[in-house]
C-alpha cells in the first residue's frame, strides 16, 4: 500500500538532499569579493549597533505580508469563534469549515512564517550588524512565498480546499493548493539559505567574532529546525501533490499522518525557538537583561533540535502507525527531552528579567522589581504576558495532555484547541508582537504609531487569549470536540447534550474572543500604521 509513497519519498529526498549537499559545499568554498560598503550602514540610536540599510526594505516587505495575513486570519477567527458558540452560530457548515481551514493556514503558516523571515533578516542585520548577503535571493524568496501564499488563499477561499490545515488524504484539495504550499515552502527554504549565507559571510568578514549572542543563537536553532521541517514537508506534500493531479493512485494515510506530524509539530518548535529568542532580545533591549547561565540556555536550544521529532509523536497517540509500547515510552519519557529545554528557558528568562530589574535598584521585598517593571512599555508587557501564556497556559497543559492516558480523553477535543491557542497565540504571536515594537524602530527607523493604543494592546490581546484558552480547555474536558460545526447536534438523528456548565464556558470564551480580536485588530492597526509612519526615530 505504501509503495507509491515510499518511492515518492525517494523522489523528494533525492533532489532535496542533493541541493542541500551542494549548498553546503558552496557555502564552504564561497569567497565574497565584495566587502561591506560603509555607506550602506547607519548606526542605530536605540542599540548603538550598525544597521544594514538595504535589508530594511526586505524586512518591511515581509512584515507587510505578515500583518496582512494576521488581519485575514483574524477575520476568519471571528467567523469560526462565533459559529462555535451555539447562541450565535454565525456561519453555515460549508463556510465554517472553509473559514476554519483559512484561519489555520493564515495564522499558523502565513502570519508566523512571514514574520519569522522578517525576524531572521532583522536579527542577522540589526542585532549582529552584518550585511545581508544574497539580497537578490532574498527577494526571490519573497516572490516565491508571495506567489505561493496567494495561490493557497485563493484556492481555499474559492472552496477548492475545504480540507483543514492537516489536509489528511483521501480528502483532496485542488492541485493548486499543493502547488501553493510547495512554492511557499521553497521560498521559505531560500530565506533560510540567505540567513545562513549571511552568517557565513559575517564570520568570514570578522563581523562576528567568538560565539553568537544568545538571541541570534536561538534564531539559528530555529532556522535549523526549519530546514528539517521543510524536508519533512516535502516528503509528504510532494507525493500528495502528484496524487492530486492523478499521477499517483493512492496515498497511504497512515504514513502521511506520521510524516505530517514530523512537519506539523516541528514547525511549532521553530516558533518556540524564535519566540524564546524574542524574549531574550526584548529583555535585553527593554531592561538590559542578561541570560542567567548562557551555557544552560544554549544547551536547551540544542535539546530542541535533537529531540523535537521524537516529541512530535504525541500527535499520533490515537493512530495505528506506532505500537502502544512505543506510544507509552515516547510520551512517558522521550517527550520530556524537549520539554526539559522549555523548562530551562521557563526558569532562565524570568530570572534574567528579575536580576536586570533588581540591578536597577528595585530590591525591596520579594516583588518590588515586578511592581516597578516598565509595564507601560508594550514590548516588555507583551513579552511578559507571552511568557505567562506560553509557560503556564500552553506549555504545562501540552506536557500533561501529551501523556498517553490523558491524551485518550483529550485528543481532538477542545482541550487541544485551548492548549495550542495558549502556545501559538498567547505565546508565539504575542512574543512576535512584542518584538515588532522594537523591530520597526530599529530596522526601519520608524516610530511606533498610536503609542497610547500600543500601551494597552498587549493587555487586551494577552489576557483575552489566556481567558478563552483556559476556558476552552476547561469545557473541552466535558468532551466538546474540536473542528465541529454544531455541538448541539441539531441536525443529527440522535439527541445529545453536554453538561450545562458548558454554556457558561461559552460565554466566558466569547468575552475572551472579543478581547483577543479587538487586541489583534489594534495590533494590526498599530503595526501597519507604523510601517506607513513618516516620523523617524531620533
Amino acid at each position, binding site marked *: *500500500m505504501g509503495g507509491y509513497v515510499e518511492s515518492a519519498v525517494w523522489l523528494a529526498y533525492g533532489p532535496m538532499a542533493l541541493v542541500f549537499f551542494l549548498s553546503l559545499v558552496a557555502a564552504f568554498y564561497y569567497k565574497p569579493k565584495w566587502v561591506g560598503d560603509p555607506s550602506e550602514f547607519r548606526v542605530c540610536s536605540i542599540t548603538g549597533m550598525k544597521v544594514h540599510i538595504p535589508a530594511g526594505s526586505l524586512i518591511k516587505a515581509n512584515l507587510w505580508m505578515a500583518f496582512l495575513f494576521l488581519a485575514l486570519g483574524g477575520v476568519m477567527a471571528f467567523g469560526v469563534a462565533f459559529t462555535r458558540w451555539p447562541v450565535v452560530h454565525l456561519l453555515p*457548515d*460549508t463556510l465554517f*469549515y472553509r473559514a476554519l481551514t483559512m484561519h489555520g493556514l493564515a495564522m499558523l503558516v502565513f502570519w508566523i512564517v512571514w514574520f519569522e523571515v522578517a525576524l531572521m533578516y532583522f536579527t542577522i542585520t540589526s542585532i549582529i550588524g552584518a550585511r545581508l548577503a544574497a539580497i537578490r535571493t532574498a527577494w526571490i524568496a519573497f516572490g516565491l512565498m508571495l506567489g505561493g501564499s496567494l495561490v493557497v488563499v485563493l484556492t481555499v477561499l474559492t472552496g477548492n480546499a*475545504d*480540507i*483543514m490545515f*492537516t489536509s*489528511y*488524504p*483521501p*480528502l483532496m484539495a485542488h492541485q493548486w493548493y499543493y502547488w501553493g504550499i510547495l512554492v511557499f515552502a521553497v521560498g521559505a527554504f531560500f530565506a533560510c539559505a540567505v540567513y545562513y549565507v549571511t552568517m557565513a559571510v559575517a564570520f568570514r568578514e570578522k563581523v562576528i567574532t567568538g560565539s553568537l549572542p544568545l538571541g541570534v543563537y536561538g534564531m539559528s536553532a530555529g532556522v535549523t529546525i526549519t530546514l528539517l521541517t521543510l524536508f519533512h514537508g516535502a516528503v509528504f506534500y510532494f507525493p500528495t501533490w502528484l496524487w492530486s493531479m492523478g499521477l499517483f*493512485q*493512492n496515498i497511504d*494515510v*497512515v504514513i502521511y*499522518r506520521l510524516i505530517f506530524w514530523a512537519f506539523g509539530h516541528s514547525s511549532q518548535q521553530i516558533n518556540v525557538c524564535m519566540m524564546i529568542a524574542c524574549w531574550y532580545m526584548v529583555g535585553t533591549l527593554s531592561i538590559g537583561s542578561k541570560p542567567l*547561565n548562557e*551555557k*544552560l540556555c544554549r544547551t536547551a536550544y540544542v535539546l530542541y533540535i535533537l529531540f523535537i521529532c521524537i516529541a512530535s509523536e504525541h500527535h499520533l497517540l*490515537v*493512530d*495505528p502507525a*506506532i*505500537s*502502544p*509500547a*512505543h506510544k*507509552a*515510552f*515516547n510520551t*512517558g*519519557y*522521550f517527550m*520530556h527531552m524537549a520539554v526539559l529545554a522549555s*523548562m530551562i528557558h521557563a*526558569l532562565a528568562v524570568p530570572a534574567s528579567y528579575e536580576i536586570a530589574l533588581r540591578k536597577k535598584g528595585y530590591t525591596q521585598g520579594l516583588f518590588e522589581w515586578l511592581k516597578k517593571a516598565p509595564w507601560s512599555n508594550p514590548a516588555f508587557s507583551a513579552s511578559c504576558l507571552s511568557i505567562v501564556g506560553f509557560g503556564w497556559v500552553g506549555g504545562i497543559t501540552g506536557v500533561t495532555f501529551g*501523556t*498517553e*492516558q490523558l*491524551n*485518550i*480523553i483529550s*485528543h*481532538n*477535543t477542545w482541550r487541544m484547541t485551548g492548549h495550542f491557542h495558549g502556545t501559538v497565540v498567547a505565546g508565539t504571536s504575542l512574543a512576535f508582537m512584542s518584538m515588532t515594537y522594537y523591530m520597526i524602530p530599529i530596522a526601519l527607523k520608524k516610530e511606533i504609531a498610536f503609542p497610547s493604543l500600543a500601551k494597552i494592546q498587549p493587555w487586551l490581546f494577552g489576557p483575552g487569549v489566556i481567558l478563552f484558552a483556559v476556558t476552552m480547555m476547561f469545557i473541552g474536558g*466535558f*468532551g466538546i*470536540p*474540536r*473542528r*465541529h*460545526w*454544531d*455541538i448541539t447536534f441539531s*441536525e*443529527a*438523528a*440522535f439527541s*445529545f447534550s453536554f453538561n450545562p456548565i458548558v454554556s457558561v464556558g461559552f460565554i466566558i470564551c466569547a468575552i475572551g474572543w472579543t478581547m483577543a480580536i479587538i487586541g489583534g485588530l489594534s495590533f494590526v492597526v498599530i503595526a501597519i500604521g507604523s510601517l506607513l509612519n513618516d516620523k523617524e526615530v531620533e
Partner: protein
Amino acid sequence: MFSLLCASPGFAEEAGGGSGLGYGLVFSIATLFIGGVGVSQMKYRDKTILIFFAIIGSGTYPSVNAYMANMSLIPKNTVTITASRYNFEVQGEAKVGEPTKVMAAATDVTHAAFIKELGVNLACLPGKGGTKGRDNFRIIVPQQAGTYKIKCVEYCGELHGNMSVDMAGEFVVKP
C-alpha cells in the same frame, strides 16, 4: 531503571511488535549520559533545579505502568467500529468489568471515534480506494453499563458535525 521494569513480556505480542525493552535500554543509557555530562558541568543551584525536574518527571513512571498494565490484558470481547461518511457501524458488545478490544477503521476518509466515558479515542483510517484501512485498537475495561453515542472527532466532510446521521453508532456495554 523504571523503564526497564515497565517492559512486560506478554505485551509485545498483543501490541503487534515492539517490546518496550529496547526503548527502556536506549533511554536509560541516554539519561545516564546526558545527566552525567550535565551534572558535572553544573553549579550548586543548577543541580537543585535538575533534582526538581527529576521529581516532577518521576510522576510519569507510575502512570506509564498503569497504562501498560491495561494494554497487556487479554481481551474477552471484541467490538469493531467501522466509520464511513456519515455513520459508525458497530459490531459486537462489551460487558462491564471484562477487558474489551475496540477495533476501528474507516472505508472512505479519515474519521475518529470518540467515547469520552469509556476512554475510547481512535483514529479510523481508510485503506486503498474505498477499502477498510489498517485496524486501530485499544483495550478498555468498561465500568458502567449503558448505551454510548460515538462522536466523530476528525473532520470528514461537510456533515462531520452531525455524524451519525441515523440511529446507528451506538456502543453497547451490557451489565
